[in-house]
């Protein structure tokens, strides 16, 4: 049985910060995993009027249990519309979707994402992972993208082994020049804190750090040089006790996504 009074673990803190990226009345494209937690948490707290959409086609389902697949019944529960997949992605291109949340196995300083493989050779990878799924589509088309994942020097890398999804490509104006739509990644959320991108160079920049994390310590968890904001680095807001309790009792009661992995 879960200890409801235990301090928040890093995944719970991360889920909270991710939920804070969601503003009420927006249309939010939800991917598998922590983004689902964040969407449902936001819906139950500060953003009760968001509309969640899913790549398998469910539009505005009645939220219930956590989906175990982006095609499962909880992603289209009593949905007024269940679209074909091509149309569901097309909505991002056509400007109907405000923000998308995506995971990564590796991310680089420009917010380019790898979910394909570890190792450079597609035919002989060290480890083959999932490939794109909808990651590339959402990243290519949605107005705003928030990336979420665990931070280690192996995951926050200078160069990703494979560009599955383009963030800001090589910085500056290169994303637009490649022909992509939307602003690209606006934020990266990890257990260390929140990051954004310098408006000119499009390099990843510290926005705030979780309690206990210093810039030096965070830099050690990063495979490239992080940019610093002007002035003192703010602390990332901590998940309030009542919201933590809600997360544990109603959003992810079985700890499917918010239990720290054990060895």
């Amino acid at each position, binding site marked *: 049985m879960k200890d409801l009074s235990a301090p928040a673990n890093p995944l719970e803190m991360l889920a909270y910060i991710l939920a804070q990226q969601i503003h009420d009345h927006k249309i939010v494209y939800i991917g598998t995993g922590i983004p689902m937690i964040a969407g449902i948490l936001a819906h139950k707290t500060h953003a009760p009027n968001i509309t969640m959409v899913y790549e398998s086609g469910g539009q505005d389902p009645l939220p219930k249990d956590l989906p175990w697949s982006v095609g499962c019944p909880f992603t289209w529960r009593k949905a007024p519309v269940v679209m074909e997949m091509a149309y569901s992605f097309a909505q991002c291109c056509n400007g109907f979707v405000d923000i998308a949340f995506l995971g990564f196995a590796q991310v680089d300083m420009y917010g380019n994402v790898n979910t394909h493989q570890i190792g450079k050779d597609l035919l002989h990878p060290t480890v083959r992972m999932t490939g794109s799924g909808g990651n*590339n589509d959402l990243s290519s088309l949605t107005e705003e993208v928030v990336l979420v994942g665990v931070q280690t020097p192996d995951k926050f890398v200078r160069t990703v082994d494979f560009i599955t999804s383009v963030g800001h490509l090589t910085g500056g104006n290169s994303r637009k020049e490649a022909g992509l739509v939307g602003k690209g990644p606006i934020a990266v959320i990890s257990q260390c804190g929140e990051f954004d991108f310098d408006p000119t160079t499009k390099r990843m920049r510290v926005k705030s750090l979780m309690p206990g994390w210093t810039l030096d310590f965070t830099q050690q968890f990063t495979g490239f040089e992080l940019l610093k904001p002007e002035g003192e680095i703010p602390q990332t807001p901590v998940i309030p006790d009542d919201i933590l309790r809600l997360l544990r009792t109603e959003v992810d009661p079985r700890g499917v996504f918010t239990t720290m992995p054990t060895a």
Partner: protein
Amino acid sequence: MGKFQFNQEAVYNLKIEDTSILDRLVDFESARQAHLKKDHAKVDKRMSLKDAIATFVADGDCMTDSGFAYVRTPHQAYWEIMRQGKKNLQCIAAPNTNHSFLIFNDTCGYSHNSYVGVEMRGIDRNYDRMLRAGRVKILSEWSHGGVALGLKAAQLGAPGVFSKQMLGSDILKYNPYTKVMQNPMRDDPDPVVFIPALYPDVSIIHCQVADKYGNGYIYGPSVNDVATAAAARKLIITAEEIVPESDIRNRQGTVIPFFYADAVVELPFGAVPGNMPGYYYWSRQWWEKLIRFGCASDENLKVFFDEWVHGVKDQFEFVDKLGGARWIAEARIQTKAAEGDHEDIDFTYEEFTKTHESGLYY
């Protein structure tokens, strides 16, 4: 060599020596001829699953997945393909991991990838091993939306579409079918990706209900299935129930027209152990066992498939192994509750882990 002007960088990167293996997926003329040659008469096309697979799935065919991951996916038909020992299939893994198991069975030799894995339950270690052991050759990499647009273009009767997806990514360096071009409507630089219409050889689509002619009704996400049905040279419709044609006429929603279908199979529990909207929930423990035990090694996967695929004759024996009538009752309540059509239930269950096996599959 192939008939088409493939993306040479991708052909080189993928080390494809004879590009003719890529042709069939974009060969519009042969797909049109195949569609013209079908018997367009509205006739009873019912047959057994065994006959449908034996007749309409040929060695070397390019086959699409259907449904989504483990939702309305024709798992039982895939198992039958494995049991019949088909060889060298090309599989389009969008959006699915299921062809990974056909590779292990030496049934699938070629892979068009847009997603390989089991979502929240992690990476597919079997596919990873098969790729590194050279037992599968990748023919193209995609995003889900890229494949969806290629199939949709075929349904639209268009040679292809221009897209904003995949631009700037490494996916295009490993996709022989796509080409980056300048948008012809604009003077200023505006790169777009040309995605050709995609025509698989065969598709199997599991529907909630169908009539004997092949009108197939889908409830829940239809994903790419209507496009796939229109594009494929050969189409097998499997269904939970075969209903009178008047029943289909009275329904509103997604229907695949009968004249696309070559075979109609009444296949209750055809999506087991996945989820069939309106009919049954997925067996969570079965998938956990597959991923956590089966996919851990070649030896484990052989044990697993010897038991669950080669060790059963049909889907009824499979359901018996899951728990029979009790499984059916539980799975029906679970899916209806998940869809909001049943009083709320507790979805708590005993997870399969490497140290805990309850023996329950619901």
